[in-house]
């Protein structure tokens, strides 16, 4: 017994030594990498200069989208999308409350995953960026002139909108697939009766090319698998969409075991053009639904929410040639299509190999009806017939693959914590680089298009540990930037990312920056509560509602003395920022407000509600350092008792 313990102890010590050595090696290699190759110079963007690329990182559980520059890794903005954002008042101001409306009521948070930038002819055009809300299924559209969320559409019959929000190569559709299959329509039923009874909806959301306005064109009601990720076909495979699945076992409990039993799950290949035609010819079944469609307008500076009551569903077995299953090993996660549209990569996350399907072979197999049975009436193609090749033993836990447009693919490996570069067609591994630690998705700017900008690869790591100065148990996630312009990948930079990026989308800065809006024109402000001249600033009472029509300009509020408000009133501060210059927002904060502040951009109107509960004279002030007299930008509201006869009065600059 004692001997065994001794052996164990020495084994532990040896392990310790080995791991220490490993640690040293790693640290050395980090340092040398930088010194040997001038990595610092490659990421240095001199003061006042601009980055070459915008990178939009999903916020994961922050619910938002963050904007970074590459190669510097500097963060420029957090765009609030699915989460209330007290910093600007998004989701608190009266104008933006409707953005959070859903069939479940007001949902102030979500889990944002996969941003995708709009395309024309398979190239990034920089009009909009879309992102999915995973928890309460939604898709948001963000305007890339204003970098603001302008539309959110809810997805009925879905739960866990994970395989989203990927777009087709002319932005015809943005896609949503349900990660959790659910009863459709929802009903009270035993969970154990899942198998065969639940449905997996794949939603095709059309995008108006002029306005960007989204609408659910149809929902494909698929078998009750879990639809994990998806990608559009492009170029030659344009017209198809590919979805990875897991839990083809249709297990409903202890999923980590029970949904990992099948040797192969499927990639569902969906010919959306065929379904589109079917639907345009009157196919499909309209079913009652209830989902919110929220739209924000940059002239009224207001959002409106509409509840949609119907959705068109399509039974895939009713549309010949619409859907096929491609067997793919072991719970594939990423489902990635190379820039030519030929290769469909299934990243079987529990497999040691990477499976690559051939689009040409798939079409051939479909034409020759080489089926290997069917699942719920959907033909299954033979694995061997569609297989283009296998990347043998590239690493452990492949998650996601991006492309550089030069015939190379870059796959992230979560378990072995590395990025592997391999060659499309020959399937040989060309290079591998460790990442710190456990990479999820990777991103090459434009990597989701026909024409990637193959200069950088960003690894979005899930585990941070010791990469930065410690900040207690909770850490930001860590991204790593690689230069991929040479034969070997070269690590250039670590930078922290906010929330948990599940994916990112990058685009050449030149495409976006020339369109970025500097401010809203006051003359185009059509908000019904806007105050377009200081002379119109006023206070009105409607029962117990008090509407304060207020303006801001450096550096005063008009009016700044308000009397006649009473305890029990509901006070609306409708504030219009009269500045017409770049980067001169004014903030508005009211003591005791139970919501947030407002940050009002030049030319914008925003409204904050305040319900005074105590008699007194209460100050408000500007929160954004607007000028040398910012500190003086303040005012008072006098609150009288509920039964007071105090008349409303307001003023500015009167002694």
């Amino acid at each position, binding site marked *: 017994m004692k001997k065994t313990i001794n052996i164990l102890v020495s084994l532990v010590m040896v392990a310790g030594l080995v791991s220490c050595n490993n640690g040293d090696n790693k640290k050395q290699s980090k340092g040398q990498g930088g010194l040997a190759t001038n990595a610092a110079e490659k990421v240095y963007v001199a003061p006042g200069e601009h980055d070459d690329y915008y990178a939009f990182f999903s916020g994961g559980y922050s619910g938002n989208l963050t904007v970074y520059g590459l190669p510097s890794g500097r963060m420029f903005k957090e765009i609030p999308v699915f989460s209330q954002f007290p910093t600007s008042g998004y989701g608190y101001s009266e104008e933006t409350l409707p953005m959070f409306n859903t069939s479940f009521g007001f949902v102030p948070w979500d889990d944002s995953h996969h941003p995708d930038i709009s395309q024309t002819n398979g190239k990034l055009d920089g009009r909009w960026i879309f992102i999915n809300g995973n928890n309460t299924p939604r898709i948001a559209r963000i305007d890339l002139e204003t970098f603001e969320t302008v539309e959110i559409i809810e997805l009925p019959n879905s739960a866990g909108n994970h395989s989203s929000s990927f777009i087709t190569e002319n932005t015809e559709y943005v896609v949503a697939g349900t990660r959790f299959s659910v009863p459709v329509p929802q009903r009270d039923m035993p969970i154990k009766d899942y198998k065969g009874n639940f449905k997996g909806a794949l939603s095709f959301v059309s995008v108006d090319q002029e306005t960007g306005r989204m609408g659910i064109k149809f929902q494909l009601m698929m078998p009750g698998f879990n639809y994990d990720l998806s990608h559009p076909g492009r170029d030659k495979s344009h017209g198809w969409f590919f979805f990875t699945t897991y839990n083809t076992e249709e297990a409903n409990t202890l999923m980590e075991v029970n949904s990992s039993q099948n040797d192969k799950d499927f990639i569902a290949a969906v010919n959306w053009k065929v379904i589109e035609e079917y639907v345009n010819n009157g196919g499909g079944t309209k079913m009652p639904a209830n989902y919110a469609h929220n739209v924000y307008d940059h002239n009224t500076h207001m959002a409106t929410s509409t509840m949609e009551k119907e959705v068109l569903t399509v039974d895939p077995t009713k549309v010949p040639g619409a859907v096929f299953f491609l067997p793919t090993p072991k719970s594939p996660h990423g489902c990635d299509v190379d820039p030519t549209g030929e290769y469909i990569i299934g990243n079987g996350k529990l497999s040691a190999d990477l499976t690559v399907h051939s689009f040409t072979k798939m079409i051939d197999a479909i034409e020759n009806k080489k089926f290997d049975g069917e699942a719920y009436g959907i033909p299954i193609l033979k694995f061997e017939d569609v297989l283009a090749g296998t990347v043998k033993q590239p690493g452990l836990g492949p998650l996601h693959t991006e492309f550089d447009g030069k015939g190379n693919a870059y796959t992230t490996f979560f378990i072995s914590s590395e990025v592997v570069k391999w060659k499309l067609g020959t399937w040989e591994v060309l290079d591998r680089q460790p990442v710190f630690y456990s990479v999820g998705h990777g991103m090459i700017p434009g990597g989701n298009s026909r024409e990637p900008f193959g200069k950088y690869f960003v690894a979005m790591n899930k585990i941070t540990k010791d990469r930065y100065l410690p900040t207690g148990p909770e850490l930001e996630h860590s991204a790593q930037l690689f230069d991929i312009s040479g034969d070997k990948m070269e690590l250039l930079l670590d930078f922290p990312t906010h929330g948990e990026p599940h994916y990112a989308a990058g685009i050449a800065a030149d495409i976006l920056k020339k369109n970025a809006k500097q401010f809203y024109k006051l003359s185009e402000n059509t908000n019904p509560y806007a105050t377009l001249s200081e002379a119109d600033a006023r206070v009105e009472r409607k029962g117990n509602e008090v509407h304060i029509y207020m303006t801001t*300009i*450096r550096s005063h509020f008009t009016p700044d003395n308000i009397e006649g408000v009473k305890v029990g009133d509901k006070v609306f501060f409708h504030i219009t920022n009269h*500045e*017409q*210059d*770049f980067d001169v927002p004014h903030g508005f904060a009211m003591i005791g407000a139970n919501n947030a502040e407002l940050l009002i951009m030049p030319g914008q109107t925003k409204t904050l509600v305040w319900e005074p509960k105590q008699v007194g004279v209460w100050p408000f002030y500007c929160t954004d350092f607007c*000028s*040398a*007299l910012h500190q003086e930008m303040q005012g008072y509201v006098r609150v009288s008792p509920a039964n007071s006869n105090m008349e409303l009065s307001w003023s500015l600059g009167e002694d």
Partner: protein
Amino acid sequence: MKKAGIIMIIGSLLLLGLFKFPLWNIMLGAPQYPDPLGMDIYIQGIQGVEEFDIQNIDGLNHYIGMKTIPKVEDMWEFEVFPIVIGIMVALGVIIGLLGFLGKLSYKWFLGWFLVMSILGIMGMYDFNLWLIDYGTDLDPKAIMKLENPDGTPMTYKPPLLGYQKMLNFDVDSWPGAGAYMIFVGMMLTVVAFFVGKKEYNKIEK
């Protein structure tokens, strides 16, 4: 005197450029204004180089108590200058035409030039007076009352011509395209005078 008459007509017509192009331009740049604010001074009024520059210059000027930049109705000059220029163009064309037809002495060309020069100098003088007034007649309740090192109140007259550092601003004041067009036009009328003289002398001989 055909050539001289044509040159005279062209020269005086060039003044019409003032109706389209600014006479003067003042640019204000500062560290926090990487894209400088600017005003273009036309004979019919003052406009921002960019759409909201005037509003933003006024916004800045209110700190030091300067008046807002005058609108068309605030200054008689914007009514009178276009009329004066219009009359001078008409006169120049008539003189040129009569010269062309040989019904008028070339000396009239110089006469026109002298009148125009006097008017121009008067205009500049008036403009400078306005700049002085604008830069020195400050609101006694101004937010910031700054003093020069010698204790006198600081004033903010922009330079009539050239560059000046004013507080955090780099101020550049230079003639605009319209001014260059008058200059060339007026020079042409002088040329017309000499050409006319030469042509006249030829005929005399």
